[in-house]
């Protein structure tokens, strides 16, 4: 099993994702340079947070054109696990691997704080180790995290169980209009979604910042451990097949 962390010019949570996977959960992990044209040999790809290409034009708008994203697109369509965190989520939206778009936070300010998200679907390779409705404390740090999509897309997301995380109170109550419970004003308090096949997930909170209690929370571990478990299961299935 090998994780890959993509490095775009301006990625700045790449080291943190690498640390979380390598040093904390002890899985093999390597960086993938944005000019790579293939990602073979990797079992899961992480698009990390940061300001790829300086967020020029729009967040994620330039990164989607980098050579590595063509390879990530092929990887995702072949069923590979792709996790986009913060700017990585924004890139997945721009690349069309996930539906919808990001607007500026409702307060028009950058927000860095611990938030709570509720796990809405545990039947994904990213949440299979979580309990249904489990509340995770994971920090956010972004200026454009106000998720939006049209009504048709929203109902499709709902219907297919593609809404994976929603912002919530510490008790797990979702309240779209409450700025404490939905800090950036996201539609239906959406914090993270998947594609229809559920092998691509993007979320605004930073699970890689929540893997050690000494830094405030280890709730993000469940996401990475779910990925490891899913990949292990896939590997076992491949062997037995």
């Amino acid at each position: 099993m090998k994780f890959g962390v993509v490095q775009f010019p301006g990625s700045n949570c790449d080291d943190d994702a690498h640390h979380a996977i390598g040093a904390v959960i002890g899985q093999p992990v390597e960086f993938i340079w944005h000019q790579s044209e293939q990602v073979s040999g990797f079992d899961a790809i992480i698009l990390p947070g940061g300001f790829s290409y300086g967020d020029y034009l729009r967040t994620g708008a330039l990164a989607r054109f980098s050579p590595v994203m063509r390879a990530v697109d092929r990887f995702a369509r072949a069923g590979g696990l792709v996790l986009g965190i913060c700017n990585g989520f924004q890139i997945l939206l721009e690349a069309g691997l996930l539906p919808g778009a990001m607007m500026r936070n409702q307060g028009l300010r950058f927000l860095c704080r611990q938030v709570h998200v509720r796990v809405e679907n545990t039947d994904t390779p990213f949440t299979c180790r979580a309990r249904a409705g489990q509340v995770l404390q994971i920090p956010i740090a972004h200026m454009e995290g106000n998720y939006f999509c049209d009504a048709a897309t929203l109902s499709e997301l709902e219907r297919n169980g593609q809404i994976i995380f929603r912002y919530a109170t510490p008790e797990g109550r979702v309240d779209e209009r409450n700025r404490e419970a939905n800090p950036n004003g996201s539609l239906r308090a959406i914090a993270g979604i998947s594609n229809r096949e559920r092998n691509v997930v993007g979320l605004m909170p930073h699970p890689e910042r929540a893997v050690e209690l000494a830094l405030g929370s280890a709730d993000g571990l469940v996401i990475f451990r779910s990925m490891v478990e899913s990949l292990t299961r896939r590997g076992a299935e491949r062997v037995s097949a």
Partner: protein
Amino acid sequence: MATINTDIKVTPQIAAEHGLTAEEYARIQKILGRDPNFTELGVFSVMWSEHCSYKSSRVHLKRLPTTGPRVVQGPGENAGVVDIGDGLVAVFKIESHNHPSFVEPFQGAATGVGGILRDIFTMGARPIAVLDSLRFGPITSGAKAPESKAGQAARLKPCPDEPAAEELTRNRHILDGVVRGIGFYGNCFGVPTVGGEVMFEPCYANNPLVNALALGIARREELFFARAQGAGNPVIYAGAKTGRDGIHGASLLASAEFSEESQQKRPNVQVGDPFMEKLLLEACLEAMRTGAIVAIQDMGAAGLTSSSSEMASRGGLGIEIDLTRVPQRETAMTPYEMLLSESQERMLLVAERGREREVFEVFHKWGLDAVEIGRVTGDGLLRVLHDGRVAAEIPAHALAEEGPRYQRPMAAPKASATAPMRPEDFLREGADLTENFRRLLASPAIASKYWITEQYDSMVRTNTRRGPGAGDAAVLRLKGSKRALAIKTDGNGRWGFLAPRAGAMHAVAESARNVACTGARPIAATNCLNFGNPEKPEVMWQFSEAIDGIAEACRALETPITGGNVSFYNETLGKPIYPTPVLGVLGLLEDAECALGSAFCHEGDAIVLLDGGGASAGAESFSSSEYAKAIHGVVAGAPPAIDLAAEKRLIDCLVQLAGERAILSAHDVSDGGMAVTLAESCFDSEGFAADVDLGAQDAPAEAAVFGERGARAVVSLSPASLARVGAIAAQYGVKAQPIGRVTRGEFRIQYRGVPVIRGMIDSFRQAWSESLGKALGSA
């Protein structure tokens, strides 16, 4: 050799317009043995500006202690360096960007952060944290006029009448721009902004202070210095292209007072691109690892001029550069403009001849320009070529090191800053202290700064163990090491104004005490000295006093100064700011697991006041307190007497208590006295309150509850540890007075057996947490 370009004939008049005195101009003529040309005059004017040459401060700065067993590099390089064990060094420095932040708050603050970050990674260190000390004019209508008998007469001059609404709006606008600028730069660059402080005084309304500190980590053997070596080695320009922005930033913006026309200086403010800086960081660190780089310096103030002449001068060599080869983003730039441009995100490197390609490859990988623009020479000259002609030729050492040095006249003010006031002169009998406490908590200086700090990414790089508001100082773990670093900035301008020497000592002591409250031992310091016009004898006296105060305190607390910055001319329309030395103190925790926060941890825990000793209750200095200012509009008398031995005892005691895990939280007693300290330890906790009895002292209740003086900290501990903590405190000569316990619900302070403050903790928290957002929400 081609001829010197003398298109514009330089006259003493033109020299004067460049801020050079007649004597300075004569000295330039003597150094060159001829008249300078126009370009050379420009170069001298920036290099000999106050900002670059420290001409007024250097004779005083010599009095600061700069050495110690951990100091690897003291002042004189891009940043200070201290050994922190495990083969690692901490690289840190603080710098001001005051004037640009007034003229253009967003870009001024952003490039202030960018500049200090470059100073850190120029030395081969990866930045791991930024802190900011900010000072603004009032953002809310302030305290009522004192209603005591002596009040009107003693009302302080620099604390003018209620500011007009438009002034408040403008101050809020400046704050908003500065905060956005700091966030814009640090968030994108990917360095956590982990702390700092914000204060408000009328004197900063037209001259806000933006002091940014950056901290980085490197392996000791991987440090880089800005010292050119090897004649014939190539000089390489890397990073952003040169434009016309920031020309004369150092000389016109940073080295002159402001007037009504200051807004016209907006073109002198640089424009920042944190994305470019992030690329530059990664490219520089990677290029350094090739081993092909000999020396490196960022192009900050005075850009190409200072980086080339300083690198040459430190190496005892010369540098020749050809401006035609400099990457440019505008056309038809003159040598004058290119040499004085302060375009951001640029580096000058000296590489090993024959290995330039390795360096170019790394920069090109990161999509950056890197071109050879010249070479190191043995003749000691900074020679600048342009279009095949010599545009300037000046001895590098003369530019970098032989600038003027002034022993400027000093004079203590004729009368002391203000007449001292006794508490009974302005306190009223029967005042409702609970109500006053609520107002104090909501005053901008005391109120929660969360509205500001949540706009900064305080967690990126996943090292932040204690971020903004979580402890007295920020605590950063070191991956791969058991140790952690603590860091804090502090400075009280009001006290500096009332008594510059004591105020400066308090700034050192409070930063160090804050660091010790996390359990870290203070090991080194950096300072940012913000003062008025040094040509005024009273300002120079304030400066000299402050230096003596810092020197004495840093010696006593064993925190040598490893670098920093002097910012003079913080005056607008002839009115100086309060003398405001800001100290950044770095501390080392041997075991990151022992790091303490300031919040109470469990209901029923004992609350103990640790007191290093010294002066008793703050009655005689009460008129200089935050409470006196915020509630009674009084700024008078002198700051509390400071006892450095007591500070040292308390620091040593706190480090020991934390190391032995005998206490669970620690918070120093500072602005707002005991009442605010206790409340803050509740606010940051999981809903706890406190019930304490301060006993009886020889002071009015208000002075006992809100009075300020050094060498005190409030700690909490399990009741079972009381005897042990008492014994450890006794070993250090520190008084440990149990004053109460951690509770839930009601917050209560008793004095002389009578409750003087009581109320539900949630209501106090609300006053404290909402006020800044309310004031600034619409900024």
